[in-house]
Every structure is written in structure tokens, then in C-alpha cells.
């Protein structure tokens, strides 16, 4: 058991290291100095208090999207619709805060609830299609993503447009989620994100319902014979994971972004999938990996300015991390590798 946990930490760490080495080779091939570039990266992320706070701000939506994928996949559902559910949550929260005609903390709460409901609803639709018609959720959630993105386009160009620029009005000042420190951009949203992470971890690993949900994901047939309602657990996983993403959208629009613009939230869904997979589907690890992603994002802008290396090299490093992490954990299940490691560990114990 200890060995298994050790491997679960070691594999992502090695993958990150390996991905960074390849990333540095790429930077070297471009004729830049990789050490200097990485230096700029870390200075951009941790150099000043403002930068440090930016990494925390940036990590909040990623944490929610990672948890969204993580929760659903524990029930055997590959929810690729994080982006759509996130956007629906953001749109619902924005619509409530703009259309209710008042401002204040109670509107904030109402807007967040609206975001949760909208995200949950956007997760419920593919859930119904799966349980009622047996449709593959990977295809349906992607289709719902595109519908949500286009719907957002409709919202900021027509429905809630303000002025000549294609964007919506901003969330009223008193409705915004308040900041923890007056002069930094960190809001209470990050606290919500971490609490959701802890709640998901507690639910999945320390309650009987969470156990049953994971059992459904692990072996639906056996769960069915044990009398667990496979269908309702799956539906629940869809709704809860959508609601988590919706809450993320609401917290982001009310705390950080304030208005919808073109390209908002683009790629968050796939980032969430990557984060959850690198974190080996552990909610607490998901929070940590999401922060790591945010550090790379914030730092890469400074790197681009400082050393001329384009920010997209960070996307490659991230993608390589997931490729190595998944291959690594798959390799651990191969019979020959298993034998090799049990020999290795066996010898150590003998010596």
C-alpha cells in the first residue's frame, strides 16, 4: 500500500521533470538560453507579491475544472464538458447580477446559486442522454461545449451587450466577491475552491455514498448486483461535476473577470481533464496540480517578454506531463513491470 502511494506521487513528479527537460531542449533548439528562460518563468510567478497573488487568482478556475473532471471520472464518467458547464455557470451568475436590478452580498449568493444550478443543468443533459439513450458522454459533452460557447457569443454580442464593443456590462461593484486582502486580486473564491476540493475528497473517500459512487465507476456490473443504483449514481456524478464547474464559472465571473468577452474560458475544460489525470484523480492532488498549471501560465508571460520564448512552449510542457504521467501509471500495471518492482522492493526489504 505504501509502495502504491509512493508510486502515485513519484510518477507525476518524474513526468514533470522529464517534460521540463524536453521543454528546455526545445528552448535551446530555438536559440534561447533555457536556464535564463526558466529563471524568467519563476521570477514571473513568484518574484513579487502581486505575481504570487496572480498565480493564486489564475489557479481558481483551474481547480474547479479539475475537480469537475475528477469527480465524474471517479464514477466512470468521462466528462469533457467542463468548459460548457463552466461557461453556463458564468453566464447564469452574470445574468442574475445584471438583471436583478439591485446589488449587494445577497445578490452575490443568489448569483452563485444560479451558477451552480446552470452548471448542474448543463451536466444533467448529457447525463440524461447517457442513461436514457445510452449515448457516449464524450461526444455529447463536447457538443454541449460548442453550444455553450456559441451561446456565450450570442450573450456578449446581442443579449447582454453593452456599448459598441462586443462584451457585456460588468458585475456591479457591491455584487462582486470580495477580496481577502485589500490590495491583492485574491478573492474568497479561492477559499471556496479549496473547500470544494476538501469536500469532494471527504465525500469520495470517507462516506459510504462516495464509496458506492466509486464502486459504480470501478465495476458497474458488480455494483448493480450489490444493489447500488448504477443509473442514479451516474446521473448524480454528471450533475455534481457540472455543478462544480458551474460554481467555478460563477466565482470567476463574480470575482475576477466581471464581464464576458470573446474567448472567455476557452480551454478550461481540457485543462481540467489534464489536471485531474496528472493528479491521478485525487481531489487534493487536483488542487495542487491546478496551482502548478497556474504558476506555469502566469510565469510564461514574463518568460515571453524576458527571453522571447513563446508562451505556447508551456502548453507543450503541460501536454508532455500528461502523456508521461498516464503512460507511467499504465506501465505500472503491466505484468512484467509489476514483477520487476516487486523484486526490487523485495530485495530491499531482505537487505
Amino acid at each position, binding site marked *: 500500500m505504501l509502495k502504491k502511494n509512493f508510486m502515485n506521487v513519484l510518477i507525476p513528479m518524474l513526468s514533470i521533470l522529464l517534460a521540463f527537460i524536453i521543454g528546455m531542449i526545445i528552448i535551446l533548439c530555438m536559440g534561447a538560453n533555457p536556464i535564463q528562460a526558466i529563471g524568467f518563468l519563476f521570477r514571473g510567478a513568484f518574484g513579487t507579491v502581486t505575481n504570487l497573488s496572480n498565480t493564486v487568482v489564475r489557479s481558481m478556475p483551474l481547480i474547479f475544472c479539475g475537480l469537475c473532471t475528477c469527480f465524474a471520472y471517479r464514477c466512470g464518467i468521462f466528462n469533457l464538458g467542463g468548459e460548457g458547464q463552466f461557461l453556463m455557470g458564468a453566464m447564469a451568475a452574470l445574468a442574475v447580477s445584471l438583471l436583478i436590478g439591485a446589488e449587494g452580498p445577497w445578490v452575490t449568493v443568489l448569483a452563485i446559486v444560479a451558477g451552480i444550478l446552470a452548471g448542474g443543468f448543463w451536466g444533467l443533459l448529457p447525463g440524461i*442522454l447517457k442513461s436514457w*439513450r445510452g449515448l457516449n458522454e*464524450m461526444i455529447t459533452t*463536447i457538443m454541449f461545449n460548442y453550444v455553450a460557447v456559441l451561446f456565450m457569443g450570442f450573450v456578449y*454580442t446581442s443579449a447582454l451587450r453593452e456599448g459598441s464593443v462586443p462584451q457585456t456590462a460588468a458585475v456591479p461593484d457591491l455584487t462582486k466577491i470580495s477580496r481577502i486582502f485589500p490590495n491583492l486580486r485574491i478573492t474568497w473564491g479561492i477559499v471556496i475552491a479549496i473547500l470544494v476540493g476538501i469536500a469532494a475528497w471527504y465525500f469520495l473517500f470517507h462516506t459510504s455514498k462516495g464509496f458506492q459512487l466509486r464502486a459504480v465507476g470501478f465495476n458497474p456490473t458488480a455494483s448493480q448486483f450489490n444493489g447500488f443504483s448504477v443509473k442514479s449514481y451516474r446521473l448524480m456524478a454528471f450533475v455534481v461535476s457540472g455543478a462544480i464547474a458551474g460554481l467555478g464559472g460563477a466565482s470567476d465571473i463574480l470575482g475576477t473577470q466581471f464581464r464576458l468577452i470573446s474567448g472567455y474560458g476557452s480551454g478550461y475544460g*481540457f485543462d481540467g481533464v489534464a489536471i485531474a489525470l496528472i493528479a491521478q484523480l485525487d481531489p487534493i492532488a487536483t488542487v495542487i496540480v491546478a496551482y502548478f498549471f497556474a504558476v506555469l501560465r502566469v510565469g510564461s508571460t514574463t518568460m515571453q517578454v524576458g527571453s522571447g520564448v513563446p508562451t*505556447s512552449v508551456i502548453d507543450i510542457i503541460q501536454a508532455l506531463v500528461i502523456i508521461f504521467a498516464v503512460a507511467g501509471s*499504465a*506501465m505500472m500495471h503491466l505484468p512484467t513491470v509489476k514483477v520487476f518492482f516487486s523484486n526490487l522492493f523485495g530485495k530491499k526489504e531482505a537487505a
Partner: protein
Amino acid sequence: MDGSTISDLIIATVRMATPLLIVALAELYSERAGMVNIGLDGIMAFGALVGFLVCYWTGNPYLAVICAAVAGVGVNMVYAFCTITLCANQIVYGMAINIFAPALASFIYRVVFGVSSTLAQATLMKTVAIPVLKDIPLFGKLLFDQTPMVYLSYLLVIITAIYFNRTKSGLNYKAVGEYPKAAETMGINVIRQKYIACIICGFFAGAGGAYLTTCYVNTYSDGVVAGRGFIALAAVIFGRWTSPGVMMACLLFGFFDALQLRLQIGSNLIPYQLFQMIPYVMTLLALTLLGNKISGPKANCKPYFREER
């Protein structure tokens, strides 16, 4: 709607359906060997970039498509090695490809054209009319005055149908996707067959991506694929894992794509985003109405452990 509108619509349908068809056939070859590859979207994005670059540098769209296809094989070999040899989860790995390949494509584009890129344009593939057939009244000019990619993709539909139903090698191929252990017992090399399936899949998916930048638009931009890989996946399910069925599904989805473009031009009152939703909503609707209780190859998506009992 007058005659020219209808003929425009048919031409657009064929043009929109072709990339879907090529990629859906790629997925068909993959799934017939039990390999579900949801990384098509990523392979297409990479193919689109390679096709564009080669076309930009050499001005030869045919060479571009071939290079893109080879690049597609290269990307898909990462998937193949990890899912076949390492027995990793196919869905997870397909997703890894979906994240990795577009990132690589976007990075290469920025390295080649600089961070603040000016819009680079390449030549498009010219249409080649088929001498006698194009003179058929009504449909001749519509169906037989297209790019060679279109003809090749329809030829591929016929070849695929014959291969899987009428040849011994095709039946062996299908056996790998249905019951690999029995296939192995009969002397079929399952691992090799799965690798071959991945090579075919990568080849066509890369070519389908290149279609977008050599026959459809003459520039590359991030997100040029726009979920077509996933629509192609839906087309395979909708077409019930047969090549004529896949073709019909792709034509249907291509028609909705063409229709939304036409409706966008025709209407100023309704926001264009609502029309752009049509292909995605129709894919959902089509699957909901007709896509239930059908099953693909039996061993689809299952890793094959040779030593397992």
C-alpha cells in the same frame, strides 16, 4: 429557394462532408480493431498545420496532404505505443493526444511565423473535373467538379466496404475488434493488426486535417478543426460501424454545416451564433433519435493483455 441556392447547398454539403468522411473512416478502421481513438481532433489539428506549412513552402497541395498524413501517423504512434504496448486506457490517451497535438501545432505555427503573426496564406487545391461525368445534367457539375480529395474519399468508402465484408484479410481484421483472443488462437497477430489499424487511422486523420487547410480555407488558425473530430466519432456510431452508413452520416452532418452557413448569409435579424449551433445540436439530436441500443465491435476500448487468462 431557387435552383442555384439548392445547387450551392449541395456543393457546400459535399465540401463540408469530405473532411468528416475521411476522418470518420479513419476512426472506423481504428475501432474495427478495437481501438477507440478520441484523439482524432488533435491529430486533425496537427495534420492541418503540417498540410498548411508544406503547402505554404512548396505550393504543392498534394504533397502537403501526404506530409500531413505521415505526420498524423507519427502522432498516432504515440497513442498506439501507449495503448497497445503499455495497455493504457484508450480514452485517457486519446484525450492526451487531444491536448498535446494542438499545443504542438500552435507552438510550431508561432515559431515559424513569429509571436505576432501576420496572416499567412497558401494556395488551395484546385478542382479537377471528370471529363464525361461532369456533363450529366443537374448533378454532373455538382458532384464531378470537385477536388481529388473528394473523389478519393468516396472511393475509400467503396474499398472499405468491400475490404471488410468480402476479403479474408478484412474479416480477420474485424475479428481482432470483436474477440481478440479467438483471433489470436486462429493465428492472427493481434498486436500487429492493432498497430496497422493505428497507422491507417493516423494517416487518414492527418489527411482529413490537411483537407481543412488545403481545400477549405487557405490559412491556419488555432481551433480550425472546431470539434470535427468528435462529430466524426459521432458519425461512426450513427453509421453503425459500416462505411456506407458512415458516409450517409457524414453527408447528413455536412448538410447541416452547409445549411447553417447559408442561413447565416440569408438572415440579419437572428444572431449568427444560433445558426452556428445547428451542426452540434443536430449531431446530438440525430444520435438521440437513432443512435441508441447499437453496439460496435465487442472488444472496443478494451486493452489486450496477451498473457491474461
